[in-house]
């Protein structure tokens, strides 16, 4: 069952990364990063239990915390970048250009 859970988490991580790559808006990338963070917490917790890593719970706790802080930081970036000084606009397309 633990192995199945690990595989499920890995698949979720891959799909999340795909959303992060596809975009299309910056908000989607923000969401993908946040979700990838929570999935890393789960991976550390389940993997650590299954494989017997040392003090994996401390690491999982730290990840959960850092993930929240970076989500808030990214959110603040959004708020202010749209509100105050205009950011330099891209040459042609605005969002999610893959060249």
């Amino acid at each position, binding site marked *: 069952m633990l192995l199945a859970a690990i595989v499920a988490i890995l698949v979720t991580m891959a799909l999340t990364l795909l959303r992060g790559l596809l975009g299309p808006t910056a908000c989607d990338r923000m969401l993908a990063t946040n979700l990838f963070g929570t999935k890393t917490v789960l991976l550390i917790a389940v993997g650590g239990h299954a494989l*017997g*890593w*040392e*003090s994996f719970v401390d690491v999982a706790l730290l990840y959960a915390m850092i993930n929240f802080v970076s989500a808030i930081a990214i959110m603040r970036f959004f708020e202010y970048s749209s509100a105050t000084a205009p950011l330099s606009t891209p040459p042609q397309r605005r969002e999610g250009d893959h060249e």
Partner: protein
Amino acid sequence: MDLMVLLAGLFNYWVAIVLMMSGFYVVIARGNLVKKLVGLGLFQASVFILYISIGKVQGGHAPILGALIERYSNPLPQVLILTAIVVGVATTAVGLALIVRIRAAYGTVEEAQILAQERAEDAAQAEHPDDPA
């Protein structure tokens, strides 16, 4: 068969090298200074991965002494990388601060535009050597 053994034994190092080279490519091929620093960060993280891969021992445990554990992974690369990570973020911060100042001085963080401005200034200086500016 031989190739498979080689692949299994060296795969971690090869991936680390490819990651390193992708960071290196960003540093030398892209003009945006922030992007260059991101490239430097990628390069840095790949060096960390290389070192930690070297320190891993098959069937080993994390080097925290316990009663029933017989084999540990190598603590030395971990110590080196642990401090390198924190030093890395401090130096990245210095780089970012420099970029902020460059942006304040030149109005851009694109290498090509900064160089063009520098050349224009140099040319103006050459034409009017008495000008104190």
